[in-house]
Structure formats: C-alpha cells, structure tokens
C-alpha cells in the first residue's frame, strides 16, 4: 500500500500538450506512472507522447473510466476552471501544480472538492510520489535524480517545500530508510489538503510506520497536526523540522504561505504545539534519519 497513489493510479493530465506537459508526462512515465489520457480543449483526437488527448475531462473519463487521479499543469490563470472540471468529472484526487494561483481560486476549488468528496493537493504543489508505484507531478525531477533520493520504504513524507521533500528523502535513504508516499502539500497559505488530513491517511496505511514532515512559518498546518495527534487520530511517530525559526514577522519568504503575522505562524509556536502533542521536533534536517530510527526503535519496544 501507500497513500493516495499506488500502482493502480490512472492519471489524466490537464495541459498535456504544452511543453511543460509533455516533459512532465515523459518523466512521470519513466518513474512508473500510468497516464491514461491528456486534456487540452480544442486538441481532442490528437496524441501526445502516444497518449490520447481529449477536449474535456468528462470525455477522457468516458473513454477511460479507470482514471482516478488528475494533474493540473495549465497556466495559473486557467487552473481553477481546470481543477473544478476535473472534480466535476468525478475524479477524486486532483493535484494542482501551478503557483501564484489567486487564493480565491484555490478556495473555490477547495469548496467544490469538499462538496464532491474529492481530495485536492496544492496549489503550488510539487506533486506526490509513491516510489516504485506511481507519481503525480514532478517530485524528484528527472528519474535518475529521483532514484538518488527516493527508494521504496515505510516512511511517509509531508512537506511544504518541494526541494526539502527530496532533501529529507535523501537523508532518510542515507540512513537506510525508504519512503511509502511523499506529498508536497504546496507552499501556499490556502491549500487543499492539510497535514492533519494526510496524517489520518498515513495512520490507516499498514505500510507506513512513521511520518517525517517539513513545516515552516506561516499558516496553521503544523498546529492542526498537533491537534490531530492530541485527538488520537494519528498515533504513529511524527518527526518534524520547522524552518524559519529566525524569520522576522510580516515578511514573506519565497513561498506565499511562509509568513509570520503578528500573532500566529511563528516557528516557535508551531514547535511548542507539536512537542506538546508528542511529535518529535528536530533542529537539523540531517538528523532526520537518526531521529526516525530512534522513534521506530522506541515504538518497537
């Protein structure tokens, strides 16, 4: 098993005929993803990389009812409509890669997903990866790079940063640990799926023993995760690092969501909440391997 994506994942890519789309599709296939269809309005009937293109997601699903995951890589101004279309067509997992999506668009997509019982990852997500099984998005980059960082294993990764997802996987690999599923939740403040929701999925996954998470200043994801642990919704070890302990209030750091306001979002507040709930908070990224080993050892005892 794994969460959200595995060997049974069948993908539709919206925006597949663009340069980025073709590139992405090629790399995903090399990493083992099965892409059933692509969607580009006006290009129905064509093929790209040997994958059939449809005008709409509904048409794609009619021809390929097995489609169960959508990837949105259209320009950000068109991303809202693409994602809502995908949800309306009945796809229950949609990953939005575009960044700088107006946040009202993200909130609208999330409202539609809620009503339809669909899961939205992103916007501004690098994607999801279950090593050896499937990939939705661009996590890990070129396949040779991906393999230097990710191997199959039993640790889940949740991360607000694409780069640090890979860095964490690399440190885990060096310490002998592999990954069940890695999820880049997106660097924005308003994202479809929060840590707490993902932790619940990892809790239910028999093939995940622990979760490693990279958090940072801004937003309420980390605090929500702490609440989920306290409520008993997640009982496995959670090993986290919170970036931005020395960030100043009011400034935005790269990710749209990485901002500390006067009264919330500070790294210190997040660390306190997580520690209080029983999560392991490390101070250095490279400690993740030893900390995870230690946590699992204690659990085994």
């Amino acid at each position: 098993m794994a969460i959200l994506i595995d060997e049974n994942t069948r993908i539709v890519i919206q925006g597949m005929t663009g340069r980025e789309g073709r590139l992405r599709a090629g790399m995903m296939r090399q990493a083992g993803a099965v892409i059933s269809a692509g969607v580009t309005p006006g290009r129905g009937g064509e093929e790209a990389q040997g994958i059939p293109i449809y005008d709409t997601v509904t048409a794609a699903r009619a021809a390929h009812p097995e489609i169960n995951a959508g990837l949105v890589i259209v320009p950000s101004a068109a991303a809202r409509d693409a994602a809502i279309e995908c949800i309306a067509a009945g796809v229950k997992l949609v990953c939005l890669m575009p960044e700088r999506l107006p946040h009202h668009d993200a909130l609208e997509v999330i409202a539609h997903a809620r009503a339809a019982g669909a899961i939205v990852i992103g916007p501004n997500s690098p994607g999801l990866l279950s090593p050896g099984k499937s990939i939705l998005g661009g996590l890990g980059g070129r396949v040779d790079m991906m393999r230097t960082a990710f191997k199959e294993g039993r640790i889940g990764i949740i991360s607000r940063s694409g780069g640090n997802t890979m860095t964490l996987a690399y440190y885990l690999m060096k310490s002998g640990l592999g990954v069940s599923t890695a999820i880049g939740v997106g660097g924005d403040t308003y994202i479809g799926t929060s840590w707490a929701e993902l932790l619940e999925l990892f809790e239910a996954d028999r093939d995940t023993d622990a979760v490693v998470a990279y958090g940072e200043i801004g937003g309420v994801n980390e605090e929500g995760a702490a609440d989920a642990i306290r409520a008993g919704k997640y009982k496995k070890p959670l090993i986290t690092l919170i970036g931005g302990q020395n960030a100043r209030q009011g400034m935005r750091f790269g990710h749209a969501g990485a901002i500390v306001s006067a009264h919330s979002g500070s790294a210190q507040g997040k660390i306190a909440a997580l520690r209080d709930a029983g999560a392991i908070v490390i101070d250095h990224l490279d400690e993740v391997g030893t900390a995870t080993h230690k946590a699992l050892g204690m659990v085994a005892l």
Partner: protein
Amino acid sequence: MARLLEFEAKDLLRKTGIPVPPGGVAVTPEEAVAAAEKIGFPVVLKAQVPVGKRGKAGGILFAENSGEVLTRARELFGKNIYGYGVSQILVERKLDIAQEHYLAILSNPATKTPTLIFSRHGGMDVEEHTGGEGIATYNIDLLQGLRPYMAMDMLKGAGISGRALPALTQIAVKLFDIYRKNDCLLVEINPVAMTPKGPLAADARISVDDDALFRHPELGLDEGGEVGDRPRTQIEKIAALIDAHDHRGSAHFVQIDPDGALAKAEGKISIGFDGVGTGVSLAAMDELVPLGFLPRNFCDTSGNPTASKMYRITKVILAQPDIEGYVFISCLSSQQLDNTARGIVKAFLEIYPDRMPNIPCVFCFRGAWDETAIAMFEQHGLTRSPFIRVLGRDATERDVALAFRELHTGWRAQRTAGAQA
C-alpha cells in the same frame, strides 16, 4: 499582499452602498482646510499610509477650526509613519459615536473558507482576538455565497437586535461582495460606528491578493511584495525588476535586515545569502543564525532560473553594504545546477577579476549536475582563493554553516593581523 489606502477602501465601500463618513482627500495643508470647511467642524485628519496602528504613530489628529487644521495638516505632511512619507490626508467629520463594532471578512487558512467575523467591541485587533471571547464567526461556503439570513443568524447570535440587525446584515452582505469582486484577503470595517443615523464605516482596511492583481487593473495597485509593513528598499526594487524581466525561474529576494541594524542589535554578523528552494533557505538560515551569522537578505533562486538571472541576483546580493560573507546552498535539487553555477561564476569573475573575494564565500551544490557546477569553480580559478569553499552533495545544511564559520574566523584573523602590521 497589496493594501488599499483608507480613502480608496472607503471609495469601494461607498460605491457598494456601505455608508462612510463625509470626507475629502487633501494633498496640501490648504486643501485640507478647504475640505474641512466644506464638511464642517470638528474634523479628524488621517494620514493615508498603507499600514495599521497609524494612531499610535501620530498619524491621526483632530481639529476644531481652520487654523488648527492648517497646523495639524502641516505637521502630518512632514511625518514619516513606519517608513512611509505622508503625501495624502483624509479629512473627515468627527463622528458622534454611540457604540463601535467590528465587522470583517477574512480568508481563513484554518477553515479554507472566507470567514465572516463580528465583534461588538470595535477597535480591536482581529489578529489578537480571532477565536477569542466576544467574537462571532461564520464560515462561508463559496458554493452558496453569503446570503442575508446567514449573516443575520450570526449577528443575532452575537446579541444584535432591532433596527441594527438588518442594517449590519446589509453591510455584511455588501462586504462579501467587495471581498469576492476584488480578490481580497481581508475586508475589514473597524470600527463600524453606530450613530443615531445608523451604522457607518469609520475606518476600513482592504487587502488584495498580489497574485490576483492581474485581474484588477482598475485598483491601480502595485504588488505589496514580500516585505511586510515597510516600503521596498532600493536594492529590493532592483531584485524585483530582475525577476519581472524574465519569467524563467524565480529570484525571490527580500531584505531581512536592510540596514544591518538588527545584526548590530543582536551582536550578529551580517552576511549575503542565496538558496535554491525556500525550504532549504529557511533551514540553512536556522543553522547560520545560532552560529552568529544573520543573513541580511533572504533569497530563493529555484525553478531553474536562467544563468543570466543568477548572475544579476548574485551581483545584487553582493552589493549589500557591510556584509562579511556570502553563503549559497541548494536543496537536493532537480534544478540544473550547472546553469545556476554559471551565473554565479560570471558574477564573481566580473566583480573579482583577480579571483580573490574580499569576503568569505561558501557554496553548496547538491542535485542535478552538481559535479559540473563544482568543477566550474575550479576551471575558472575561483577555488584558489583561501576564502572560497565549494561543497557538494554530501554536505548538510549544518556542514555549510560550520564551513562558513571556519572561513570567517580565518578571514577575521587575517584582517586583524593585517591591521596590526
């Protein structure tokens, strides 16, 4: 986030049908007098700057007559409020307020919805009080919008009754309209003044999503950028231009400590900084600060920026005054690091034709084409300098910070020795 000035926000409210106090905008003290005479005394003079807590900074003054308006307006126009010079004053009738409430719609990251917030106690700071006592909230389902009954139920629950109930409901629904039409992060009336003639928006704050400004040319707003409640520095403006002129890859540059005052106050050493990836940049900063080095700037150059963009941003980072070093670190990245490195190398070769930097510099390349990137420093003679160190894939964030400290210690020692000789 981009923030409207108070009078611009009130214009939007007025156009939507939310009552605001009579007033006028002045750009000279004389205009302020004329505006006041038209409105009638007493008046309040409010500096128009895009920051909160103006009152505390002396940005809000009262006047009883034309003479007072002239002196107070002159005083205001000479002021600098949290880094903003005052070039516009809003002159308004001083209100006869029976009671003040708080009403806002905010994009709420916890619920991932717009949230209607009301408090019977106006003048509060919502960020200090969200979730606190005396605050009523209603999470709005975007598929439904905000219908009057929803707002009314919430207001009623908060203890509002009588004629105030439909009046405030009306305002809430119109506020939501403004929020949606303008891609707002926050639309706030604080306070809603309850006057004998009904509720009035005594002060208003509207923040608009930077990423949605492209659909609102009519607002005439510039990106609020990443700097928070202060204007952009000259060097940040240069960095922003570099980023805007080329969409290929990003260069998010923001000064944490523009004038070095923070480093001085905390006894830290100011350095230039660049990272590939926001996450690793934050993590690396958290390694550097405890060792005594405070990055003067934050910079994230990810998404495969062109080498030319790297060249330009590196020159910007190195131009910051007083820095005692430069640190570059990539996350384990699928970005083409040889490309990244070529830009940095060109900048260094141009700035240091003798290949001998005047400050200690540490580079760490991890990821795609990292070995090519590292080899480049050697090929161009940059590794001959005792003050350049280039690290590779097996270095950790911590290693990078420690390597920098070592170089910096040596650099300091050499300078002290040089000064004595």
